[in-house]
């Protein structure tokens, strides 16, 4: 045993007592870092030494850095139940370290198990010899909800069934690694493992160099290559030539943003270069699967699914599923699509199989299991049931499938009465339950509140089918109990994740996933892989982003005016001042101030029109102005409020999570956080309703957050313009932006400039409209004169060189509409092309002198009003036509059944 100077640890209590750290596991508890003599294992030396050099306080600050990175990258896990929402991913900077030799054993064991499970799965959906020969009791399969009758004979006999596999591993008190559970339908976690590694490598770069860790990218490269080969494998299995391509279209099928691991689906899709889709995005036509994309249907060759088995096809599986694709099973049967893993594979997520595996292994591959499963007794067998019932207190009791509900029950935690209930439950349906040894998992050091503490850990490892055998990810996702001594470990319950380091004998070169693919991958077409749903979401991201910007800018003007009122120049230290007071103090009795009220009303009307929250300011007395103002800024109940717009923006962006660069996502995250802060600043008590808003005190921070928001939105718009490839996705987003910006400008002009008012109020309004549309500087720079109505209109509406003008928006819109994919029928313009042509013509034929003209007899500039109303209508029509033509291929399925016999 080699002893480094840092290993002279001694045991005190239940803590690691290392030179500089505290807390070591007590008694006989097996620990990953310490050997039985409580000395540090050789493979931890480098890490501990590096950690020692770094020091725990520094480690703590790196931890904070890791968390910040994960948060900014939007790594989340959706939590159901009481505290719903996206929870940031928790990563402990101290990894689980596995020695090279240990890993050789583990990975050989995993490969063997994957081979074995593949054979079992193939048999269960084929001949079922294992049942007929008595190697698996029929109930273990037929009573398991994962056995799907419709999937028998689904894939051709020679084609592997288990393509993607994960196993939960842990070290037991005997020091051996045990398999706790198998994940065979759509294992999650590989993406989180990758993100953990990325975050850790960024915040602790030196450690990796010093310790020598296997890279994860090899695994993902193997995955990509084997996905590319899969059609050839299928062909050789069926001996039928398929319409295969060198560049198969691969999609990741997700249940959508509400799924607990949606982040991972989006992350993996974009990392691997696959299209992220939902069930509605796909359709089966002529026995093939197609993606509904902007330029029509595109064939799909391979589906990496994250939708559960039973939800895959509403025709043959769960009829109420909205997550699957009708006809998918038939398309698989015909060999026209490969689904990874094929539906039906969850029958192996079945602890009831475990007692029979050693025997099956001997029979099928003539080998003993290299990695044992945790000791398991199936209650369907009388003797095993007797054992379980006699030892209930020492065992963990689980149903054979998760659909039966309920978590594992730990006998030791039950009262006598509860044990009796459990006994009765087992006796009623013995074949549905298993008893499992309560494994005392090994602990591994975790950084908890600045100290290294022992925590029980489970490792999830990942395998992917290659042409020959399986590739094993050298590492995996380690999860730790959040609390000391906790029995269940799950991310849902607040567990913490860890990176997993498998030590490499020598340093490995860095691999980028993009380098190896060039031989086989052709350059994708502009619209490749963009589903109609994704395009629609991008369109709305564009619209909401513009709307939020417009609202925020106008709100800022209003609040600035309010601030300036009686507070005069002392506003730099606004502190806690009620805007109600600001308004009432602003709106004094003298004539000038009455006129100012008129001005404010106009502006507020713009805001209302902007947010379409009628009835809003339109007909309100001044007392409620500020309620409306606050409501329009902060009220989540008000669907037209700024906060609601921001929520809609984030939600639309989240639905196309895979489309954003890391930087864009950071900005989006900042917007989301800001939005949460704004929401929180409204008092919780909703009963008191409006009253609370009146009493609500606007703080400087909220005003400052508007400024901040403007910066984030500008950053978003900049990234959209400069960092997105100008493909169909970007076109959709830009169309959204142009339509919204044009509509906002129209609303602003209609509410402020149509009505004829006193000259000096008109001046104020012109100035505000110019400010709100970011044109004031341009105006001053260009005209260096007082505000002149026709000139202002010219700049706002007809100046093609002004990127904020209406004409500019329409021209851009025309360009983008022309770029949309469409089939030409002769020379006829499409409906949306006709509409934009009409809008451009109407606008360009107008004359600002005429539009601005007002006489003493008129109160309204009718020409201006008429033009603006017509243009607004056309823009709304364009939006509708685009939705119908390009976005809504989606039709809801319904079930047909014979209703009586």
């Amino acid at each position, binding site marked *: 045993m080699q002893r480094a100077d840092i290993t002279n640890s001694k045991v005190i209590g239940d803590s690691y007592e290392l030179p500089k750290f505290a807390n070591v596991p007590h008694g006989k508890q097996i620990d990953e870092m310490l050997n039985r003599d409580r000395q540090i294992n050789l493979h931890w030396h480098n890490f501990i030494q590096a950690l020692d050099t770094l020091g725990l306080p520094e480690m703590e600050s790196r931890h904070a850095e890791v968390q910040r990175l994960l948060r900014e990258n939007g790594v989340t896990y959706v939590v159901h139940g009481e505290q719903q929402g996206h929870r940031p991913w928790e990563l402990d900077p101290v990894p689980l370290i596995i020695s090279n030799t240990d890993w050789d054993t583990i990975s050989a064991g995993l490969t063997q198990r994957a081979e074995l499970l593949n054979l079992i799965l193939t048999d269960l959906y084929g001949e079922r010899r294992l049942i007929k020969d008595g190697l698996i009791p029929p109930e273990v399969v*037929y009573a398991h909800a994962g056995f799907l009758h419709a999937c028998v004979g689904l894939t051709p006999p020679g084609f592997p069934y288990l393509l993607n596999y994960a196993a939960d591993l842990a070290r037991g008190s005997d020091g051996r690694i045990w398999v706790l559970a198998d994940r065979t339908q759509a294992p999650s976690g590989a993406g989180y493992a990758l993100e953990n590694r990325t975050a850790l490598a960024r915040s602790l770069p030196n450690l990796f160099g010093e310790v020598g860790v296997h890279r994860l990218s090899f695994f993902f490269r193997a995955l990509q290559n084997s996905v590319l080969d899969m059609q050839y494998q299928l062909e050789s299995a069926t001996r039928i030539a398929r319409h295969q391509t060198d560049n198969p279209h691969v999609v990741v099928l997700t249940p959508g943003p509400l799924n607990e691991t949606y982040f991972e689906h989006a992350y993996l899709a974009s990392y691997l270069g696959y299209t992220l889709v939902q069930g509605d995005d796909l359709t089966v036509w*002529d026995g093939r699967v197609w993606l509904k994309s902007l330029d029509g249907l595109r064939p799909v060759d391979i589906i990496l699914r994250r939708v559960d088995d039973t939800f895959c096809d509403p*025709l043959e599986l769960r009829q109420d599923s909205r997550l699957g694709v009708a006809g998918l099973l038939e398309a698989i049967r015909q060999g026209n699509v490969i689904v990874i893993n094929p539906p039906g594979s969850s029958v192996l997520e079945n602890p009831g199989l475990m007692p029979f595996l050693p025997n099956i292994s001997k029979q099928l591959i003539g080998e003993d299991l290299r990695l044992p499963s945790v000791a398991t007794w199936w209650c369907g067998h009388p003797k095993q049931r007797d054992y379980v019932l006699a030892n209930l207190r020492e065992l963990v009791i689980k149903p054979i499938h998760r659909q039966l509900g309920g978590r594992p029950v730990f006998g030791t935690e039950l009262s006598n009465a509860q044990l009796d209930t459990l006994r009765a439950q087992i006796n009623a349906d013995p074949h549905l339950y298993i008893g499992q040894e309560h494994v005392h998992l090994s602990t591994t050091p975790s950084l908890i509140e600045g100290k290294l503490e022992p925590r029980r850990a489970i490792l999830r490892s990942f395998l992917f089918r290659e042409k020959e055998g399986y590739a094993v990810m050298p590492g995996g996702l380690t999860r730790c109990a959040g609390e000391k001594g906790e029995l269940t470990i799950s991310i849902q319950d607040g567990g913490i994740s860890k990176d997993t380091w498998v030590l490499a004998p020598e340093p490995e070169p860095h691999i980028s996933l993009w380098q190896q693919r060039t031989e086989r991958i052709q350059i994708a077409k502009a619209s490749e892989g963009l589903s109609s749903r994704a395009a629609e979401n991008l369109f709305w991201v564009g619209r909401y982003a513009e709307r939020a910007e417009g609202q925020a800018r106008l709100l800022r003007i209003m609040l600035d005016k309010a601030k300036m009122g009686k507070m005069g120049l002392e506003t730099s230290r606004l502190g806690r001042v009620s805007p109600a007071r600001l308004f009432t103090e602003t709106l004094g009795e003298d004539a000038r101030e009455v006129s100012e009220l008129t001005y404010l009303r106009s502006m507020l009307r713009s805001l209302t029109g902007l947010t379409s929250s009628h009835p809003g300011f339109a007909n309100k007395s001044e007392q409620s102005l500020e309620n409306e103002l606050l409501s329009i800024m902060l009220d989540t109940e008000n669907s037209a409020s700024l906060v609601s717009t921001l929520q809609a923006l984030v939600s639309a962006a989240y639905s196309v999570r895979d489309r954003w660069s890391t930087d864009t996502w950071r900005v989006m995250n900042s917007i989301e956080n800001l939005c949460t802060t704004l929401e929180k600043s409204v008092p919780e008590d909703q009963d008191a309703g409006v009253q609370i808003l009146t009493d609500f005190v606007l703080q400087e921070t909220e005003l400052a957050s508007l400024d901040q928001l403007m910066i984030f939105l500008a950053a978003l718009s900049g990234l959209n313009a400069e960092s997105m490839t100008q493909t169909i996705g970007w076109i959709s987003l830009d169309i959204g932006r142009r339509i919204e910006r044009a509509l906002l400008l129209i609303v602003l002009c209609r509410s402020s400039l149509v009505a004829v008012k006193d000259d000096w109020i008109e001046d104020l309004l012109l100035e505000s409209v110019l400010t709100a549309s970011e044109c004031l500087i341009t105006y001053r720079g260009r005209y260096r004169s007082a505000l002149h109505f026709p000139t202002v209109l010219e700049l706002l509406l007809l100046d093609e060189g002004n990127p904020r003008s209406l004409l500019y928006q329409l021209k851009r819109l025309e360009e983008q509409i022309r770029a949309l994919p469409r089939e030409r029928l002769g020379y006829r313009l499409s409906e949306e092309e006709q509409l934009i042509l009409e809008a451009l013509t109407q606008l360009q034929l107008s004359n600002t002198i005429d539009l601005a003209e007002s006489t003493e007899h008129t109160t309204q500039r009718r020409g201006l009003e008429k033009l603006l109303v017509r243009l607004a209508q056309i823009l709304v029509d364009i939006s509708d036509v685009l939705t119908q033509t390009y976005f809504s291929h989606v039709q809801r399925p319904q079930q047909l059944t014979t209703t009586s016999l």
Partner: protein
Amino acid sequence: MNYKITHKTEYSYTHPVNLCYNEARLTPRNFAYQACSDSQFVVEPEPKECRERQDFFGNTVYYFTIQQPHNQLSVTVTSHVDVNGRERQRDFAEHLAWEEAHRQLHTDSDPDILEMRQYILNSPMIPAMPELGTYAAKSFTNGRPLLEAVEDLTTRLYADFIYDPDFTTIATPLADVIKYRRGVCQDFAHLGIGCLRALGLAARYVSGYIETDPPADQQPLEGADASHAWFSVYLPQLGWIDFDPTNNQIPTDQHITIAWGRDYADVTPLKGVVFGSGTHELSVGVSCERISE
């Protein structure tokens, strides 16, 4: 006995349907006591694709899709079936007592019997309920031959439950059927199966037809205007024996078998997913004529 069966199903939609995917289990089976010489599907509008396969239970599944807008879907199946009804097991006492049948079913390692154990388990439409066991127990007295007990159960179901087509739909849970003591053939078949499974016996669901126009000297049977359903019990050595609780009969040559499975969900005659916004109306017509003796 030779039959010509015509089964027509029509869906009318309030709004056009653009796309539909369907699965029909309407082709009569071939097995020891029945031969289906010919079965023709006519679907209107004409399907873009159609394909036939055997499902897990050996039933023929006809898959078809329609990819053009349509307001009406009609599926007509015409089949010629020769029913060679098995001789009625008259002397029940010669066969196994139900406890012995139960023992063999649960302990025998014969591959066929192992496969039959799946029919003891709960299935999607027949959950375990204590009432089922209690109800069945009266027929299954100690040492009673299995077939005698099942016949008694069939008779009791016939007597205790009222045939009432207006009471249930396919969505009516079995618990309601038990509570209100009414239902149709499908419910009674489910009940019989549930009772047998509650005792640990293997039972399955059979969908089919019964003769619609029997000779003048015979009573017309219940459930003849549409497809029919009954249940079957497994007896080691003897195999599956059918019972029709709706008509209190042991089917011989007036019952034509289409398909079997664990329950209705496995053998739904026609199901589909349609893409369209409206609602639909359904009409079903069956005629089952005896062509020759």
